[in-house]
């Protein structure tokens, strides 16, 4: 299919856009694209199309595409983020992930907020790796390609990020407990 797109069947690329559009959009949002997510995703697909000839058809397309989305997000947001406080960034991340409409989920709203708050307190790289491994549910191999990190690094960073997240959640529990007394 990808070979056919490269060979000139340009409209077939539309199928790939439809198939991976939502995943790309979520990735952009989780990487902090916020209100730029629409633009970032469009830009990423156009870049992906232009870069297709460099894509090795024997490799997986999904993580390759996501790496382009990540790069595009970072390029777009770098200038903007420099001028913004970390707190604002986290706030916007919360808002985008939670969204306004209620979504069917097994998590209680309370627990969801706890998790989001804890994720928000993590450093950027920890949050990103957890977003890829669990929120987007990508494998270690896919995450390694998408974030351009060695597999071993993905493994160790994921473990470290999880540890930090658990610590933050534990502290939150204590604080909530104290408040209830």
């Amino acid at each position, binding site marked *: 299919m990808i070979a056919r797109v*490269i060979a000139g069947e340009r409209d077939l690329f539309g199928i790939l856009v439809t198939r991976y*559009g*939502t995943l790309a959009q979520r990735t952009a949002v989780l990487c902090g694209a916020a209100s730029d997510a629409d633009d970032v995703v469009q830009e990423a697909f156009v870049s992906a199309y232009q870069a297709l000839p460099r894509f090795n058809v024997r490799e997986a397309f999904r993580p390759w595409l996501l790496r382009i989305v990540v790069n595009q997000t970072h390029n777009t947001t770098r200038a903007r983020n420099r001028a913004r406080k970390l707190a604002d960034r986290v706030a916007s991340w919360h808002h985008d992930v939670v969204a306004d409409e209620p979504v069917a*989920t097994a*998590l209680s709203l309370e627990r969801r907020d706890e998790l*989001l708050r804890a994720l928000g307190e993590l450093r950027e790289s920890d949050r990103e790796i*957890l977003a890829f491994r669990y929120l987007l549910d990508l494998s270690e191999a896919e995450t390694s390609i998408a974030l351009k990190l060695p597999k071993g690094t993905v493994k160790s960073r994921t473990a470290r990020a999880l540890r930090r997240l658990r610590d933050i959640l534990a502290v939150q529990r204590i604080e909530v407990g104290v408040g209830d007394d």
Partner: protein
Amino acid sequence: MTDVRDELRELGRGIAVKARDDLADVVLARIRTAPRRTHKWRRWLAALGALLAAVGVSAAVSAPVRATIAQVFRFGGTEVHSGVGPTPVASPSLPGASRTDLAAAGRDVGFVVRTPVALGPPESVTVVGHRVVELRFSRPSGPVQLDEFVSDSDIMFDKYTMSGLAQRVDLNGGDAFWFELPTTLVYVLPGGVAAPESARLTNGTLLWMVDGVTYRLDGVRPLAAALAVASSMQ
């Protein structure tokens, strides 16, 4: 207690973010209108695209060498149809065509314009829409035209063969296509819309690609003479 990893996955499944419904349309529209770049990698892209297109064509036009074209095949920015196509016009004109000279033409289209020694210097040089160079020659047997353009994924010409026949031939170790019988050639504008006012009848066409540039020689027959002209490109 539930593992936090499962909770994160659950959180991920609850993300309400979706791509906009018309994303594919928007992206395709942007790809179609993306300006041509003549960076090195772009040339490389064109060459690879050409290679893959040629492989596709080999499969589409199977042995024996002379085969009936089933439906449509693409080769070097040209889409070949089996059918009558638009009616050729008496004096075909291509939108955005302007007269120039060889050196200026190369600067305009972004690749080196090559000429066949066998035909001598061209009588006229025309550039169409910054992407096609047309060289015209006057020969005792009639007018000859050589078109050159970057053969990337954009279709620049529709070609209709009424006989439904094309012959795959070898040109210096590469694939070329020979259309012995008259065909109708239509210029395709950027954006993919054919320009009916450009429809012209060609008699004896050799189509080939070198280094990501497509060459189309119209009006030299028979095949051996066309191959000799193509081999004299400099």
